[in-house]
């Protein structure tokens, strides 16, 4: 699709292709390929020898397949169009008086499309030949206004659920796998754990994800803690965020007592009471 890819393919495959005596380019689409074939054979676009073009077109497609290039359905669709045109051209050729009647040349639509396409292809080249802002010319705040819209202030991004689960998996893996010694454990409910976490967070404003699991060996307790955390996320009472990729995961109240968090767009709906 993009330029780099195009040149890359062309050079890399140059040797293998020499026996086909064609230079393989990655074409923008079937129309692009057809135009290329017409130019290469110096054909008259208004009178395309459809049999020849179809043959060459199919050869190219096979070539592209051999190269493991992804031959898009659009190319195959055009192949079938070509074959269809070819076959319908065979029919009137039996008559001594060919076409010219009210019957339209089966190639007409294809020709129109090719012409139209070649004009836009040319227009594209012309656009590219201009001095472009951010390429040859610069104004204040380049390369282009797109940056204004996409660059949001660097607030620590909210974390995805899967990353959270992954972090928990790591903690769980570290937890000792002691199984014996089964004393009827004094279990803690999720609700209780929620309250514990809440008070911890309100006290500290910011805690590390791992901290919640410190000094807990009991797997059930670990799981309870994690579920409590998820529940708090769901209630939007807390914000779970990560400064950088693979950075430490931190937890803070969604609504802080102080106004430290500039954005509360995501989380700040529910009250912490």
């Amino acid at each position, binding site marked *: 699709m993009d330029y780099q890819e195009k040149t890359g393919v062309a050079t890399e495959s140059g040797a293998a292709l020499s026996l086909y005596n064609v230079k393989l380019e990655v074409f923008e689409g079937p129309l692009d390929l057809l135009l290329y074939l017409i130019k290469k054979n110096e054909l008259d676009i208004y009178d395309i020898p459809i049999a020849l073009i179809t043959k060459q077109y199919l050869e190219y497609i096979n070539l592209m397949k051999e190269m493991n290039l992804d031959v898009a359905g659009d190319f195959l669709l055009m192949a079938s169009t070509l074959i269809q045109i070819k076959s319908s051209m065979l029919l009137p050729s039996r008559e001594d008086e060919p076409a010219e009647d009210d019957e339209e040349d089966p190639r007409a639509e294809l020709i129109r*499309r090719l012409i139209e396409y070649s*004009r836009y292809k040319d227009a594209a080249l012309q656009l590219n030949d201009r001095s472009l802002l951010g390429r040859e010319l610069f*104004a204040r705040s380049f*390369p282009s206004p797109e940056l204004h819209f996409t660059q949001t202030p660097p607030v620590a991004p909210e974390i995805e659920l899967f990353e959270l689960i992954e972090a928990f998996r790591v903690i769980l893996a570290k937890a000792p796998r002691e199984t014996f010694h089964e004393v009827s454990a004094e279990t803690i409910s999720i609700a209780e754990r929620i309250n514990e976490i809440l008070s911890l967070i309100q006290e500290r404003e910011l805690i590390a994800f791992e901290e919640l699991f410190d000094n807990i060996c009991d797997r059930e307790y670990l799981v309870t803690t994690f579920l409590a955390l998820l529940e708090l996320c769901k209630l939007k009472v807390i914000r779970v965020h990560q400064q950088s990729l693979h950075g430490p995961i931190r937890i803070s109240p969604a609504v802080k007592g102080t106004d430290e968090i500039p954005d509360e767009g995501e989380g700040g709906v529910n009250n912490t009471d």
Partner: protein
Amino acid sequence: MRFRTKGRAVSTTRIKSIIESLLFVSDVPVSLDRLCGILDEYDRDEIRNALAVLREEYGARNGGITLAEVANGYQFRTVEENGEYVRRLVKTRASRFSQSALETLAIVAYRQPITRAEIEYLRGVDSGGVIKTLLEKKLVRILGKKDIPGRPLIYGTTREFLEVFGLKDLKSLPTLREIQELGVDGIHEQQEELPLERADETTKDEKPGLPGDYD
């Protein structure tokens, strides 16, 4: 604090100076209307005149900055010869457009308002991805929905498109060239009317008829 001045020359100098400051600060082209709105102490002709003088001065100066008329407005831009050096300063890679992006942009620019299906018919390939990219880059925008079954979205170009490609407005898009000029030659018989063409193709009607309702 009004700057009513008697002499026209004095006021031109003053207006010029103000416009220069405004354009210097702005990061988007500023339209004449906008300038007039800001300089409401002065009348439009004076402002237009001052602007012309300012542009002349920048042109005559042969400096590193030009005052360009783009996207229905005015903007200071660096001159092309210095592009390489500016790129070293800002350390950007020269942004390149892929062939498919350019083709799609050209089609949207000349044929807007246009649906995705029409773009794909013209290009002969699926164009969903490239349209999405162009939307993300703000070069293309959704104009609305077409009043046909399925109510497909219709697309048009944006102000940013004009800015990036240095076009004053859509009317200044170069006329589409005829097939004979393109090297894909044929016998020059009467060309049939193209299916999607709206008007005869030899004239300037080729240019998109959209008045710039850009914001």
